[in-house]
């Protein structure tokens, strides 16, 4: 039973990070329909930005986080303005956009490798004293992370469902043409989507790094695929569903250790994803499905 709770705690912690990945991916994908693989690059960038501000420039952690958020939102917006929009305006196929995004991902990932080296780097974070609650080890970050993730999700829910800007954002997901007819610029909303979606990444990176993992150039692809997975599980067009799905993935991944060795974790999660796509393509909270027409 102790093992179960330990795994559950670990799962909720990792799930919080996954929820932020999912939220970030979904915020960008829902209105733009861009497979933003370069987001993996932005995530790596977020990690190294935190490292540069916190360790090289010796700024306090909060200041490093604020600066990293500013940097990644600018980078995200840059992706939209300098890469995706020009490509889409040229009328290239969907797949070409994906390829360009993969190309940018490779460039960012390896630039970081070139500058900072391939090995993991750590931030200046005070060592945490774990609590021992009836045989279960709990690190403070494991409590903080879910709270942060929930707070961000709540904030976005408020923005999406209680403000005019949120209404416009949701309209851009379901009916961009109508929005355009009403004189509201969809391309501006897309730009915001990229900026806000990217702004979440340094937070996710910091939460994960605080749990003891370092900053390394290879973490990008996992982050973006997990984010995509959370979004599809939660249901496309539903950013909040992506957050919930992120938590579910984290918990399932960790509890699966009960059944199979840790090495199988990732395969299990993707196996479940495949099953969900086959059985319920709408995801848990989604609506529209793009079916094969046979």
């Amino acid at each position, binding site marked *: 039973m102790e093992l179960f709770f330990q795994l559950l705690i670990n799962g909720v912690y990792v799930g919080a990070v996954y929820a932020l990945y999912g939220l970030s991916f979904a915020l960008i994908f829902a209105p733009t*329909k861009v*497979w933003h693989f370069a987001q993996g690059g932005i995530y790596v960038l977020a990690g190294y930005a935190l490292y540069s501000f916190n360790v090289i420039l010796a700024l306090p952690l909060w200041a490093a986080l604020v600066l990293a958020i500013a940097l990644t939102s600018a980078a995200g917006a840059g992706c939209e303005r300098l*890469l995706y929009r*020009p*490509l889409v305006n*040229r*009328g*290239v*196929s*969907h*797949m*070409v*956009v*994906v*390829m*360009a995004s*993969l*190309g*940018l*991902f*490779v*460039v960012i*990932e*390896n*630039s970081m*490798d*070139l500058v900072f080296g391939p090995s993991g780097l750590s931030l200046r974070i005070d060592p945490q004293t774990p609590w021992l609650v009836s045989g279960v080890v709990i690190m403070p970050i494991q409590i903080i992370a879910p709270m942060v993730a929930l707070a961000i999700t709540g904030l976005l829910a408020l923005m999406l469902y209680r403000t005019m800007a949120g209404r416009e954002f949701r309209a851009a997901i379901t009916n961009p043409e109508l929005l355009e007819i009403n004189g509201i610029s969809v391309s501006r909303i897309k730009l915001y989507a990229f900026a806000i979606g990217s702004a979440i990444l340094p937070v996710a990176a910091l939460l994960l790094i605080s749990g003891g993992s370092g900053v390394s150039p290879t973490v990008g*692809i996992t982050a973006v*695929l997990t984010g*995509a*997975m959370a979004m*599809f599980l939660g249901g*496309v067009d539903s950013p909040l569903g992506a957050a919930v799905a992120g938590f579910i993935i984290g918990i399932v991944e960790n509890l699966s250790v009960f059944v199979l*060795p840790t*090495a*199988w974790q*990732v*395969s299990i999660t*993707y*196996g479940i*994803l*495949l099953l969900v*796509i*086959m059985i319920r*393509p709408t995801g848990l909270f989604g609506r529209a*499905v*793009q*079916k*094969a*027409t*046979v």
Partner: protein
Amino acid sequence: MEVYILGILVTITIFALMAISLDLLVGYTGLFTIAQAAMFGSGAYASAIVSLETGLGFWGGAVAGIAVGAAVASLASIPSLRVSGDYLVLASFGVQVVFHGLFLNLDGVTGGPAGLRGIPRPSLFGWSIDSPAEYLALYLAIAVVIVAVLRRLLASSFGLLLQAVREDELVPQALGKDVLRLKIKIFVLSGAIAGLSGSMYAHYITFVSPESFDVHASIFVLAMVLVGGMGTTWGAILGAAILILLPEVLRFLPLPTMSMGPIRQIIYGLILIMVCFLRPRGLIGGRS
């Protein structure tokens, strides 16, 4: 030097076949999948295991590679019958990750992270193939046969039907064509060729390990198809040649060894972006 160049040509032949197999799905039929390394890897492992365990050599291994590649592809085709577009991209990623996990974790069968060593080299009528020149002759012969057969097939009504599915699934369906069966067929064909190229790879390198068949390998092959030009067999071949040759050319630049890997990758990424902007239909695909 001569051996080095011949070696590169052998690698290009293997990857060109793999790129052609992916082009059947992505280029001809419009099934956007990123899981080719799963089929390539299954073929490579199947071939390695059969030749190591049974002593049937390259030819027995190749048959196993084709069969297993086709079987894996028919599994991978299941999502495409249910969903399309973005869902299919993600589902194929799922297939890729699951198979990479299998290669990595089925220690008893695949040798786990260490992989399988000592895969026998091919032999032909008692003549053992072990120099790059002999490899090139054998592999090129195999590739030419396959390309010739494929070009006949793609020029037939079957090829037209594939393109019709790419343009609009509903039209061939309205004409009473069985699109479902067609999709399974093209997946199986693609998987068989990918499996064969995997087998050729295993018997050339004589060593297989999971990292050769990860997500990045699938993306690499997709890049070949896109750079060369989708829906054209020559495009896939050209794309494979360019993306294999490029890092080799960079080898001759005076760069510190440490930064060699990342610089190559950065140039690879930049080329992808450039092709997207300048030749979005690939080098052979003409201007859009």
